[in-house]
């Protein structure tokens, strides 16, 4: 039962009470909808009176009474339906809205680490598609369930008053058909898994194909030549067909067949009872009339059961997201004194694999520290721990003497500016995008920051200058321009700590010189930690830290590290050589 309750809680987006209210109204609605059926049976009775007792004529007064009931039902139903309609459109949209807003509030509190470890596309799918799925499901399943419940309970009460044996004949087929529906669902689940794997394969195959289309074309392997994907797609086709022809359909069809046999059964049993004199003719007729409409909602329910697994999955994804915990936040309002940063015996891993091992490192206030080392050595993990994307597994990170876990997120992030390689621009004006840095900035300050970040010129060349809208994801600006916008943001924010990830991909020299200017403006008088790729640009940093496989292997300034003739010196020489390389050298010698 508690499993069901949990499921129900999930499917109703946690608003069980509101759903119960809606469900009760649905029950009432279907009850009123069912009145004409009852009137129909009574009308049949009234029309049979002249036959039953020859000589009497149709009792018109009773017809009037029935008509009165119908008119009352019609008028009453207008009002009931109006409320039902509003409930359906607004009530469900309202529950979804409440839950979506809760989700937005919840997401806001989750750590930066959560967002960098999850695919944003997947997350938005949950917020968009999964919610819609649940909403549609609730909109369809609730009235169905309500109709079934009402029709059944009315039928059971009324019919058993007439004749219990006949009632059994009506309902016997339902327990007989139910196992088939359940079997169908089970089989669907099993085959569904098969389909899912082939779907995943096909979908990653398609992504690979689309991503590699240029390469495939260059080697003349596009289209039909890419046999592997074709095979995967064929497998998916087969799995999908199998699910329909072998798993779901046959079983549920047997269920349908069994259900529809009910009418014939009632007809046959009734005629035997009738001839034995154990059943009145009118009762027989009444039973026949009612069985005609009683099985349809059950059939619909069968089909909904098939969709249940999919919708449940949507519900589970929403619940899982709600269950993600934000990093614990201490209530205390300790403010860091100064911006010296220190890592004490810090170890950290993503999942099981530890990527930083017992790192001790201090970054004095207003100094420039460069982190260098091969990719995967833990450089960016260090900067992310400082910004508290995640909490360390052991050891502490402090800023201005206060552990980052004791500082509120607002305070912490207020002290840090991050300039990373991938820049996200909002679908808004350039000005608004720069103003992200500080909402209270005046237009002059925005322009000032843009000028310092070498953005002003290209912005003025845009059709509407600072009021130009940039596209979703900022697709209309070049990579270098986006970089500079992000630096302008950081300049406007003017935080005392700068975390900088030097771009790995070099742009053309002129563009890059401009970015370098912008960075120079940004880092002045700040505590700077830079993840460096080109050693030349950090050769005069106050401190150079060489990392390898999560450990600090060398530390010092440029000159002292060169003297050591260790990894750094080797890297320095290699970079100088590679930088001076010329094609055709072999040819000319």
């Amino acid at each position, binding site marked *: 039962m508690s499993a069901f309750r949990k499921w129900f809680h999930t499917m109703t987006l946690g608003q069980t009470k509101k759903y119960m209210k809606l469900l009760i109204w649905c029950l009432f609605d279907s009850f009123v909808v069912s009145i004409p059926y009852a009137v129909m049976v009574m009308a049949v009775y009234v029309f049979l009176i002249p036959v039953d007792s*020859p000589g009497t004529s149709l009792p018109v007064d009773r017809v009037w009474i029935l008509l009165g009931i119908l008119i009352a039902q019609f008028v009453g139903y207008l009002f009931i339906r*109006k409320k039902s309609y509003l409930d359906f459109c607004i009530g469900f949209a309202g529950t979804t809205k409440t839950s979506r807003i809760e989700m937005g509030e919840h997401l806001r509190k989750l750590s930066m680490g959560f967002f960098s470890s999850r695919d944003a596309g997947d997350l938005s799918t949950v917020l968009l598609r999964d919610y819609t799925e649940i909403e549609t499901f609730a909109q369809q399943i609730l009235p169905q369930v309500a109709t079934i419940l009402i029709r059944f309970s009315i039928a059971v009460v009324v019919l058993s008053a007439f004749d219990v044996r006949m009632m059994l004949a009506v309902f016997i087929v339902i327990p007989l058909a139910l196992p088939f529906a359940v079997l169908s669902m089970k089989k669907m689940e099993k085959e569904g898994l098969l389909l899912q794997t082939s779907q995943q394969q096909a979908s990653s195959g398609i992504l690979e194909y689309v991503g590699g289309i240029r390469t495939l074309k260059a080697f003349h392997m596009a289209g039909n030549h890419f046999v592997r994907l074709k095979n995967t797609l064929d497998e998916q086709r087969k799995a999908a067909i199998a699910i329909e022809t072998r798993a779901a359909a046959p079983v549920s*069809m047997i269920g349908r067949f069994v259900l*529809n046999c009910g009418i014939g059964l009632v*007809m046959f049993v009734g005629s035997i009872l009738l001839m034995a004199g154990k059943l009145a003719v009118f009762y027989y007729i009444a039973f026949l009339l009612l069985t005609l409409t009683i099985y349809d909602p059950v059939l619909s329910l069968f089909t909904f059961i098939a969709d249940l697994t999919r919708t449940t999955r949507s519900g589970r994804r929403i619940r899982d997201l709600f269950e993600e915990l934000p990093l614990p936040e201490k209530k205390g309002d300790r403010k860091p004194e100064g911006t010296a940063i220190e890592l004490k015996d810090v170890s950290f891993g993503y999942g099981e694999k530890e990527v930083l091992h017992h790192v001790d490192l201090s970054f004095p206030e207003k100094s420039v520290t460069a982190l260098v080392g091969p990719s995967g050595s833990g450089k960016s993990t260090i900067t992310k721990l400082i910004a508290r994307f995640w909490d360390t597994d052991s050891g502490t990170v402090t800023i201005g003497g206060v552990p980052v876990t004791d500082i509120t997120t607002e305070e912490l992030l207020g002290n*840090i500016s991050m300039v990373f390689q991938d820049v996200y621009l909002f679908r808004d004006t350039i000005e608004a995008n720069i103003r992200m840095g500080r909402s209270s900035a005046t237009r002059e300050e925005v322009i000032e920051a843009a000028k310092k970040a070498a953005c002003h010129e290209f912005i003025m060349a845009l059709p509407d200058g600072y009021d130009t809208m940039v596209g979703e994801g900022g697709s209309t600006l070049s990579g270098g321009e986006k970089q500079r916008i992000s630096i302008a943001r950081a300049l406007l924010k003017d935080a005392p700590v700068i975390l900088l990830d030097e771009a790995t991909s070099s742009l053309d020299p002129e563009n890059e010189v401009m970015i370098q200017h912008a960075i120079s403006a940004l880092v002045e008088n700040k505590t*700077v930690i830079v993840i460096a790729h080109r050693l030349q640009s950090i050769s005069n940093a106050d401190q150079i830290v060489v990392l390898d496989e999560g450990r600090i292997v060398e530390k010092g300034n440029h000159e002292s590290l060169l003297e050591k003739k260790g990894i750094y010196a080797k890297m320095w020489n290699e970079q100088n050589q590679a930088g001076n390389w010329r*094609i*055709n050298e072999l040819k000319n010698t």
Partner: protein
Amino acid sequence: MEKKKTGFSRLLELAGRKKRKLLAACALAVISSAAKLIPFFTVYGVIKVLLESYNDVSGMDGNRITMLSAITLGAALLYGVCAYASSALSHTAAYDIIFELRIKLMEKLGRIPSGFFTGKTQGGIKKILSDDTEQVEIFVAHHLCDIAAAIATPVFTLVYLFVMDWRLSLITLLPIFISIFLLVMCLVKPDKAALQVEMHDSQEAMQGTIVQYIHGMPVIKVFNRSISAFRKYESDIDRFVTAVDTTARANAWPMSFYYAFFGAQLLFLLPASAYLILRADSYIGYLPVVLLFLLVGTGLKEPMENMMQMVILSGRITEGVKRMDEILYAPEMEYGNADMPKTFDLTFDHVSFSYEEGIQAVKELSCQIKQGTVTGLVGPSGGGKSTLAGLLLRFYDPQSGVIKIGDTPLSEFPAEVLSRMISYVFQESFIFHDTVENNIRMGNKEADMEQVIEAAKAAEIHDVIMALPNGYQSVLGEKGVYLSGGEQQRLAIARVFLRDTPIVVLDEATAYADAENEAKIQKAFAKLAENKTVLIIAHRLKTIENADRILVMKEGRLVGQGQHDELLLSCTEYKNLVDANERRNCWNIKRMEARV
């Protein structure tokens, strides 16, 4: 050219690929829905029998009732079997169609110019291939047969009813007509239509905001803007729900009339029946007809409601089909059937190209590249370097001018010949989820293992491969088998070695970090360039200092060509580039004066 169909008729056209199967499926669906109606008539038959001997049950025709029961059971069986067969057929047809469509789309993607992909994300195209095609299934496997059944069932019933008694049939239909009339009135009114538009717009705005809220969350958090971003998120959701609310309230009365009338057959039938039966020749003779109408009239509501639902649903599918057709109908490249030329001199003759109208990426460019020489291509980003390389590889065709290999224009070569003449090392190499061997073998399917290894050695990647768990048989992208960016590029170079084309286009990668890799790639590049015609897009000017010739591009034009020394003197653009390069290379994060 064939006429391009859209919307519903396009869906039918797609379904037409499996005409026979689907016609059979629809026929079976109609039979099954007819079978589902049979009980209404057997019950009617039983009632008729009962009325004949109402007051003398013992004299009743029991055999007829047994027979009618048997027919009812048979109808249930027929219903089950036909519904199954129909669904099996239509689903098989649907998945066959989807499969064919996907293959078609794949092939098509291989034939359309790469320019098609600019401005589209890989995710977007993937969605078309995997999700939008799936929508066809919903139509073909479900809606098509359901529509056939949903139309056939009420039509059958109505025809039968008309035969029985046309007056009562009209009465039965009356409330349904009123309902549909109300619905149409409701949708057509201009103020209601405006509400629909607002609902649609606000929904789009909400979806956009949600996507931005999530994708931009890292930025939002870093700048402590989560409260205000959340407010926008909240208010856009609110706006949508308000739009739903207003629309629902505006439609509430008409919709409740719609639903109420839909279920009001009895309200009209009852008085009409009473009126007619009292004036009938024989009360008992007319009674079965009345009972039949009472019965069917109340049962007609659901199939009719289903039919309305279907019509509404099908309209939504056409969106996805439209996106699919955008690919299927995209113009293709045309290939000739020229043979491989004798020489591989490259000629660009007044070549112009633009991605978007009005903005030319390459303008009136003319130049020649002699066979066996190394040519460097430099210039600021956005200057047209990559576009020029793309034109040479026929990713796009120039809007005017011509590119020739030897004496033959590019467009006259078949794709296969072209790919044997030119190979390309991309800036970002694409590695397939497959074995190392197969990844290299892309270059040449027929190569034997030794040649593969030789190519890997030439590309300086052999040692790395041998260090992988299964050597050449390691599947890349699988757990633990991962190549760094630089190694990936070397693998891509191995492909090109195996391909061994006379012309090679190199796009110097900018996106790798460690110097060791860089040195190896450079070594491989140099080996690859031996005895070939090479065009190298250089980002580091040093790389091409010794090239036989350097082309300088800016804003789509060739602004200088010659050797390094000549250009330094003659071409200001080149000189600026070299200067910027120098300045970049000695930039330091900390200003020198700060250290004093």
